[in-house]
Structure formats: C-alpha cells, structure tokens
C-alpha cells in the first residue's frame, strides 16, 4: 500500500510539459480570438471561451459536491474513490484564472464592456418585443439592475471562487494530513467542512450558473437553471471519476483497491444523475411551455426554430440529440447490470455522456439573439456552427490541459498516498462488496 514515488514521477514529467504546452497553445489561441473579438465587436470568441471554461468548471464543481456528499454521509465505500477526486480539486484556482479575461474585459473593455454579458454596458442594444432599445431603457433590466451590475457581479464571482477554493483547500488538507498522522479528528474536520460546504457551494454554483450563463440573455430567467448546472456537473464529474479510477487500475496503482463494487456504485450514481438531469431539464421546459409567457418562451424558441421564418433550425436537431443522446440512450444503457460492471462498456458510456454534456453546455450557452435591423422580429438566432465553435475548441483544449496539468501535478507531488491509508473507513472501502 505504500506509494513508490520514484516510479511515479519519472514517466509523467514529459506529460506535464506537453499539457502545459497544450494549455499555452489553446489559451493563446483563445486570447487571440478575444482580441479580435474586441477589435471587431464580435461576440463569438467570448462565447466560445466561456463554453470551454464551463465544461471543466462543471467537472470540478461536481467533484467538490461528490466529496462533500461522501463526507457528510460518512460513506464507507468511498475513501478509495474520494482521494482521486481530491486531487481534481486542485484545478479550481486555475479555473478562476481562466475566467479572469472575461471579467477584465467587463471592467476595462470601455464601449465593448458588454460584449459577452450585454447588461454590463447600459448602452448596449437589446430587444424589447421586436424593437431595438438600449439596456438602460429596458424595464426588465431596470428591475434587475440591483443584482445585475458590474460591482456586485465581480464581488459575487470572487465569492464563488473563494468558496470553491476555500472548501477545496480544507477538504484536501483534512484528507492529506490524515495520511501522515492518522488522527481521526481530521475526519471530523472533513465532515464539518462538508456540512457547511454543501449549502455554500450549492448557492455558489446556482448563482454562478445564473450569473455566467443565464445572464447571457438577461431577460430570461429560470429557477431550475442552477439545479440543471448541478446535475450536469455531477454527471460529468462521475464520468471523469470513473475514467481516472479505471486508468489508475489499468496502470496498476489502484489495482485490487478500486473494485468492481466501486465501479458499479459509481455507475449507479451516473444512472441516478442521468435521470435527475432529465427531470430537471424537462421540468424547466415543461413549466415554460405550460405557462407560455413570451419573456420565457423565446429562450426555447431560438433553440428550436428560426424566429423569422418559423422553420426548424439546426438547434432543433441539437435539442433532439440531447433528449435522445443525453437522456434516453444513457438511461436505457445504464439500466443493465452488465453495462455497469464491464469495463469497456462503462468506459464507452461515460465518454458518451461527457461528449453530450459538452453539447448540452453548448446548447445552453451559445444560442442567443443577434440584432439584425431588417429582420422580421428584429433579431436572428445565432447558428449552431460558427466561429464560436472554433474559438470554443481552443479554450476547451487550453483550459482542459491547464486543469489536467494542475491535477497531475497534485497526483505527483507526493502530498498524499494513492488512497487515504489512515482513514477510519479505509478497510471497509477496500473490502467494499456488492
């Protein structure tokens, strides 16, 4: 059970360099996009950047929530898995850094300050019914200005990442310190941090989703949105956790420690959150569909049809893809026991879920109303394929490589054993049985 640090370090140093190079290339490309966007007033690179960040942010938030849930339930099977997730938490400060350019543009972008979040600039044009007005003339903004203003927005973002990084720090400290001295009070500390951390992180992720993603179309509102982001993040985090653990089994580090029972339970949780995601996403649609209020329905309309012609747009097929590819297929697939315990079958479906999670975020972040003066309704819906996708891929790769680098560095730093060897629950976790 001891970790041989000499064999752990050598082969992966090359990987770290490659990841760092990948992140510099990806983020560099994305930054070039942001500069171009600022010059030409093009929103696409900003949307792409946000999309790329959102994917990794959702994974990290899901990891954080899972660890805290394991902690408060004092679950006996989880410690072997939890340690891998604790390493993943080291990505949070870097995620904050990746979002910083968007905030800097909001502060120092002058007349382009509202390029991503139009409400930041009071003179940005916006749509009311089908006429173009400025944000400050829009009654829907006036009523929300107490919340949606740059100072408060900045404060909130700092608070969210303060919460994420702070909880991560304490959870990692509680777990890693126990490896050294075996003091059970570290377990109590972890439980206490989690008990306070769950509501704090839940609020941070909910309002974070409101601020960063929902406010892209600030007229629209949905109380389900935060829950949707939570459910998505849990699905993504479970998928990444399964991949990390199975990788560590395949290279021998967790062989015999991460058992079929752990894999089965993580897969069951994946099934649970597949259903939960569908429940939340459907409820959001269902309530807006039933109420049928234009302030709310336009958000779904631009994801289904071309608002000027009423013809189905590319987003319709993305929406259908989400219903069948992100819910029905994984749901039916994960119902079967064999698909949860056979390693290749499970790897297939978690990769599938991650791909569709990426599409889900794309569907939530990218579509929007582009003001076009001659158009019948005064605007056109942003298309599925566009430069936002290209810029998005840059930031997706860049942020991903940066996070992977941070996480691998945490794995290699030797701050912790491969499993929490002195956790009071570790024996039960190793002997976990279906």
């Amino acid at each position: 059970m001891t970790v041989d640090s000499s064999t752990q370090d050598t082969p992966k140093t090359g990987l770290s360099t490659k990841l760092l190079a990948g992140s510099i290339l990806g983020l560099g490309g994305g930054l070039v996009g942001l500069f171009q966007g600022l010059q030409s007033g093009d929103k696409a690179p900003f949307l792409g950047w946000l999309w790329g960040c959102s994917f990794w942010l959702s994974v990290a938030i899901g990891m954080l929530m899972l660890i805290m849930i394991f902690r408060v339930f004092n679950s006996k099977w989880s410690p072997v898995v939890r340690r891998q997730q604790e390493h993943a938490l080291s990505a949070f400060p870097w995620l904050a850094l990746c979002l910083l350019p968007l905030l800097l543009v909001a502060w120092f972008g002058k007349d382009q300050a509202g390029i991503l979040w139009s409400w930041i600039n009071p003179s940005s044009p916006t749509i009311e019914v089908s006429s173009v007005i400025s944000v400050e003339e829009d009654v829907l903004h006036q009523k929300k200005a107490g919340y949606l203003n740059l100072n408060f927005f900045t404060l909130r973002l700092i608070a969210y990442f303060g919460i994420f990084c702070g909880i991560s720090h304490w959870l990692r400290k509680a777990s890693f310190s126990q490896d050294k001295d075996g003091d059970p009070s570290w377990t109590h500390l972890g439980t206490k941090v989690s008990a306070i951390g769950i509501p704090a992180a839940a609020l941070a992720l909910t309002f974070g989703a409101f601020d960063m993603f929902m406010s892209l179309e600030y007229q629209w509102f949905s109380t389900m949105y935060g829950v949707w982001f939570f459910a998505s993040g849990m699905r993504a985090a479970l998928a990444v956790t399964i991949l990390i653990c199975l990788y560590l089994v395949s290279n021998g580090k967790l062989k015999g420690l991460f058992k079929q029972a752990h894999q089965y339970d993580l897969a069951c949780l994946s099934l649970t959150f597949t259903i939960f995601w569908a429940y939340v996403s459907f409820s959001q649609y269902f309530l807006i569909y039933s109420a049928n209020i234009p302030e709310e329905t336009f958000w779904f309309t631009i994801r289904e049809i071309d608002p000027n012609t009423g013809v189905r747009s590319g987003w319709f097929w993305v929406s259908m893809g989400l219903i069948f590819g992100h819910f029905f297929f994984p749901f039916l697939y994960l119902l079967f026991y064999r698909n949860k315990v056979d390693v290749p079958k499970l790897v297939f479906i978690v990769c599938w879920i991650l791909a569709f999670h990426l599409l889900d975020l794309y569907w939530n972040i990218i579509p929007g109303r582009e003001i076009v003066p001659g158009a019948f309704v005064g605007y056109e819906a942003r298309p599925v394929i566009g430069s936002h996708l290209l810029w998005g891929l840059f930031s997706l790769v860049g942020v991903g490589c940066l996070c992977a680098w941070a996480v691998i560095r945490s794995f290699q730093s030797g701050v912790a054993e491969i499993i929490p060897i002195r956790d009071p629950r570790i024996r039960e976790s190793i002997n976990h049985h279906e």
Partner: protein
Amino acid sequence: MSDTMDIKYAAAATFSSAKELYDAAGKVKDEGYSNWECFSPIPVHGLDAQMGYARSKVPRFTLAGGVTGFFTGMLIVWFMNEFDYPLIVGGKPYFSPIYPFPVFYELTILFAAFGTLFGMFFLNRLPQHNHPVFEHPEFGRTGDDKFMIVIEVEDPKFDDEQTVNFLKEVGGQAVQIIREPID
C-alpha cells in the same frame, strides 16, 4: 414418526460459523448439487457467488412493468384527450408527449414498482405459509447463532446415504433428514 405419514424433504446440516458455511457451500456446489439452500442469521458477502447463483431476475419484471406503465400512461391520455373526448385545454394539442409527460412518468414508476414487488413474490413463490425446513429442530437457531445447508430430495444427485455422509464430510453437525409430516 411411526403413526403419522410424512414426506421426505431434504438432508440438512448445521454449521457454527459463517466461514464454515461459506467453505461448505463451495464444496456442495462443486459436488454438483443444484437444488439446495443456505440459511444464515447474518448476510454473508459473496455467498451467492460461492453457491453459483446468477443475478436475480427481478429487474426483468421491473423493466417490463416500467415499459407497460409508460405506454399505459400514453394510452390513457391518447384515448381520453385525442380519441374519446377531444378537448382543447390551455391551447395545447390534444395529444403530445410533452404536456402529459408527468402521467407517463408516474405510471412508469408505479408499474415498475408493482413489477418489482410482484416479480419478487413470483420468483420466491410467495406467499408460502409453511415450509418443511421448519421441522428441523435446530432451524430456529439459524436466526441466531447457527448456519445451515439444506439439500433437497428433489435434487437429481440426492441419495439418502451419500448426501448425509457428504454433509458430514464437509463439516456439518446435526446432520439429519428433514421429514414433513402430513395428516
């Protein structure tokens, strides 16, 4: 036992620890018995694999129940709103998979639960008011501190003498033939 009629039910042996039961169960399986059962006061992890049991078939009943429920919900809504008494409510279509989805969903859950419960009853042949194994004088202690293996007469490999001897060989105590009295 002389003046009441009885039916020979099984050979039974008791064990004093979970480990003895676990080891003996492996031997019974390897000997090729198929119609036999273990009794234990505590859950013994891995015993089903040791006994050569496949996974339960209850989930099939659950799935069948769920699918039935989903389409029953659809049928109800379609029959009432589209076929038998079309009525416009809130500008919604007569039939659509969206607005009545909660109905499909609830019936899926309900019928899946029925499938699970009644599937379990069916597979376990419940309800069953009495069981011949209760005739064994030590059986009550399998709820306390004893473990038991019972090999039924129905098993094709069963043989009065050989099976009793075999149970003794694998470490069974209080080995005896269980007879179910009938009158």
